[in-house]
Each structure stands twice: as C-alpha cells, then as structure tokens.
C-alpha cells in the first residue's frame, strides 16, 4: 500500500501528461460542473482520496461553436461580430488581434487617431472583463460584497463603451482598418471622470477583500505554481505574471500606439492563488493610467478608419498577430489564399493555454481549495472552447 504522499507525487507527475485513471475503491469520483458547483460552462472530473484531490481530468467543449470553421465561410468584416462572442465582456481585445492580422495581410496602416481610439476601447473592455471575473472570484470564495461591488462598478465602464460603440457588451467596434466610428461629443471629459472615480474604488477593494483575513487564509500559499512550472506549462497573462515572469505583450511587442505609453508591467513573486487574484487588480490600476495617457495624447482630429472594400482581397500568405487581452496573450494565426475569405483561422487564446495548469495545481490540494485555485486561473470556459 503506497502512502498518500507517494500517491500525490505520482498523480502530480502524471498530471503533466495526464494518462490512465487511477483504479482504487478508496477513491471517490466527483464531477464538477457544467451545472453548478461553480465552474461555468465547463466540467472537470476529480478523484478524491478523503479530502485530497489525486486526479483531475478537464472536459471542455460545452460551448464549442466552431468559430475557426465559421471564419472560413465569411469575409473579414463578417467575421468580426461572431469572433467576439467567446468573451463578450472583452470583445474589443478579441477583435483587435484579428484586425491587426488582417491589416498585416492586406498591407495597410490605421490612421493615428483610429489607433488611439481602439487602444482606448480595448483598455475599457479589459477593465470591464476583469471586474466581471473579480465578481465571480468573490462570490465563489463566499464573499457576496465582492460580487456586488465590481458588478456595480462595471456599469460605469459599460456606459462608456455604450457611448463609444452603441452596444453594451458585444461592441464589434475594432474592425480591420480602424474603428467603426469616431468618439462622441463630450466623451473625453466623461471618460476621465468615470475612470478617476473608478480608480478610487479600486482602493476600497483592497480594504474589503484583499486585506480580509479570511480571504488571505484561503488564498495565500494555496496552489503554488513556481516560475519553472509556469514556463514549462506555457501559461500566460496574470497567471504567468503572478509566478514572477514580467511578460506583457503590450510591453514586449508593442502594437499600435503602446510604445508611446508609459506604464509598468505588474508582477508578483509569491506564485500562489493570492498573487493570481491580485495581479489583475494591479493591471487595472495600470489600465487607468494608460486610459488617461491615451485621452491626453489623442490627436484632436483626423480619420479614425482606413476605408476598405467590403470584400477586400488580401495577398496570399499567413501571419500571426497577438495582443494582450484580459486573460493573457491572444494570438490569431490567419492564412489567406488571396480570396476575400480567410483560408484558415486559428485562435490561440489565453484561457486554453492556462487550462493546462488546472490539473497540475489541483492534484494534491484539498477539495476546499478548489474554487480558490480554479477561478484564480483567470479561465473563461467559453473562450477556451471557441
């Protein structure tokens, strides 16, 4: 009979390349999701030895829509409204990467004012997504106030996006060639006021949630993902930065106007669930700085969009463009054969990459730590399924 420690070590070793299921009468199999215990549209099977998780098998695909196949039947503009569906809260970022890829294939540059406006839209949408994620993280740690506050504050940013694009969440605002329309009258003042207010609110989150002793006890030292493991598993975004790698696509490979913006890459070295939950909040503060700079440096007038034909033909070839989304690097690999429709589109999304860390972190931890670890991975099931 092997001891529990040995079993956990074995499971941990196996989880890197998940293999056969462990057969033992002592183990209890538990299915988490897709209806409640709080996993979103996602299910994973876990095997328990008493209170300890010894085996995890993720089973995504409950919201698979086949976006990559759908792209092959539509032209570049028709692709925008359905490509943003996986993460409607972060729609401006997910269409940003696709727009950059198409612009690279067609060979155009976006007018300077358009570049500023789409960077602004994607920062607002990043804030909106992160707040939604934070609300869910709060409620699954049993902290209802942390659900109410971000969900309420998110309305401010949704209001701004609505003024900008006309829609609350599915904006379809960033398109190949620039943005759909110019910013409305009086937008700058309103945006500045809302963002300044929002930044003050962020300090209150610290007081009620992150400095709460209960939250600290449940997250600190839980689910350690060391720097070496994070690199090996190829995770991205806040999960990677919480493990001490200062990698942010906006900084390392600046696209559009991000090389003119002054901001820091926020990262922590504690590698635990608390760090993974706190890095997005640090990111939100940086986003507020970025928004103020964008509003300040934006040219007063000019085109916002390079007008393209609806059925624009791109030159044959392929490209890979990425942006930093709310969940990490988001890349589009677009292959074109010279027709108006792309030949192949592959989205490399942060959620799908971070999923690999889930079995690795859960194996060997207690069942009670499962929500604190699972939601700290910044995982959005719909995006991972595509």
């Amino acid at each position, binding site marked *: 009979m092997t001891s529990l420690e040995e079993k956990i070590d074995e499971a941990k070793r196996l989880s890197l390349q998940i293999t056969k299921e462990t057969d033992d009468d002592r183990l209890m199999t538990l299915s988490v999701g897709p209806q409640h215990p709080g996993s979103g549209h996602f299910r994973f099977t876990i095997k328990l030895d008493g209170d300890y998780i010894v085996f995890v098998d993720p089973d995504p695909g409950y919201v698979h829509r086949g976006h990559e196949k759908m792209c092959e039947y539509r032209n570049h503009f028709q692709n925008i409204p359905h490509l943003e569906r996986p993460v409607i809260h972060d729609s401006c970022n997910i269409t940003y990467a696709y727009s950059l890829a198409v612009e690279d294939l067609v060979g155009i540059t976006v007018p300077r004012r358009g570049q500023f406006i789409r960077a602004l839209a994607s920062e607002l949408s990043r804030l909106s997504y992160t707040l939604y994620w934070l609300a869910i993280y709060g409620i699954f740690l049993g902290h209802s106030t942390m659900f109410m506050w971000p969900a309420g504050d998110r309305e401010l940013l949704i209001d701004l996006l609505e003024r900008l694009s006309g829609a609350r969440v599915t904006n379809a605002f960033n398109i190949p060639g620039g943005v759909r329309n110019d910013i409305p009258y009086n937008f700058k003042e309103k945006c500045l006021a809302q963002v300044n207010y929002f930044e003050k609110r962020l300090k209150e989150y610290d007081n009620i949630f992150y400095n709460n002793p209960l939250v600290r006890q449940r997250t600190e030292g839980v689910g350690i993902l060391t720097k070496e493991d994070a690199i090996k598993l190829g995770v991205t975004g806040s999960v990677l930065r919480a493990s001490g790698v200062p990698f942010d696509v906006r900084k390392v490979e600046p696209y559009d106007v991000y090389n003119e913006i002054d901001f820091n890459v926020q990262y922590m070295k504690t590698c635990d669930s608390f760090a993974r939950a706190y890095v997005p909040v640090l990111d939100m503060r940086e986003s507020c700085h970025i928004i103020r700079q964008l509003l300040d440096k934006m040219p007063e007038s000019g085109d916002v969009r390079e007008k393209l034909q609806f059925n624009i033909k791109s030159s044959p070839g392929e490209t890979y463009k990425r942006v930093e989304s709310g969940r990490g690097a988001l890349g589009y690999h677009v292959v074109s054969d010279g027709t108006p429709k792309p030949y*192949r589109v592959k989205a490399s999304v942060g959620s799908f990459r971070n999923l690999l860390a889930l079995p690795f972190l859960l194996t060997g931890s207690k069942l009670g730590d499962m929500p604190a670890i699972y939601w700290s991975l910044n995982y959005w099931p719909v995006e991972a399924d595509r």
Partner: protein
Amino acid sequence: MEKDKTQNNQTNLMEVKEEKSNLLSNSLINSITTNFGEQVKLVYKKENRSKIMVSPENLVETALYLRNNHGFDHAESASGTDYPADNQIEINYHLGSYSNTDYYPYIVVLSTRVDRSDPKSNSLINIFPSVEYHERETYEMLGVYFLGHPRNERFILPEDWADMPPLRKDFRIKGR
C-alpha cells in the same frame, strides 16, 4: 518644431526596433541553417516572426535544438491546416520564449507537412509540455495522430461525434 522632433523620435524608434528584429531573425536563421543545412527551409521572415519548414523526420530534432540553444521554452499554439490539393496537412507550432528576454517579442513558427491520407506526426510533448492540449485538439479537429502523445482522444467536440474531423476542407457546414 516640437512636433517634428517627436515624429523624428518615433521614426528612429521604429528603425531601431526593425533593426533589432532583423538581427534576431538573422542570428536565429543562420544558426539553424549552419546546423541543419538543406533539411530546414525558411518560408518567410517578417518583423519578429519567422517560419521554418522541416520534414517530419527532423521535427523533434529541430524543436530540441530551438529549445536548448535559443531558449524557446513553450508553444503558444499548435495547429493544423488542411491542403487537399497537395494531399497534405501542415502542422504549425508557434514557439515563444519566456526565459530568454531577447526573444520575448519573437515567435518562430516550426512547421511540417504530413501525408493527408494517413496523417501521423511525432509529438513534441516531451520537449514542450505546453503542447499537450493543442495537439489533442489538432488530433480531433484534423485527424492527425501524434506518435508519443498519451491521449489522442476527443477533447472539445461532443462525446457522440461520429463524423469526419471538422476542420478538414471536405467537411462542409450544412447550407453553406
């Protein structure tokens, strides 16, 4: 006057960026070609991107070389593209680096082409553990069997999926 100055600064910045990317590309490609010679073919070279094509036999060797000598330590994605006209399926690995700061912005696309009627390729899971789910997805979406991968199984598709791999070009969406 001041505006001119900022514009000059910007163009200088751009030039510096391009130069750096060019240097990276050249050093990478030179080192690969000196080591592998004719076995490796350069498909394109762009800013911070380059794509190299290898034969299926050399795939593991090249990946190992990229990891050990240049610090490419993870795969951002692994995907496949179907080319029915050539009767081939192309497999692309987008490799990036977190440990070598010089290669932070750089993505190298390692690609290979396998026979479409019996697609089999060596798995890179022992070199890059991060490709595990990507290869599994490629298996179910394009039907490429990865030798050495522990689970060539269904992942995202429905449990009762009984049709052909859906990202093959001869799989048509109904009504389109």
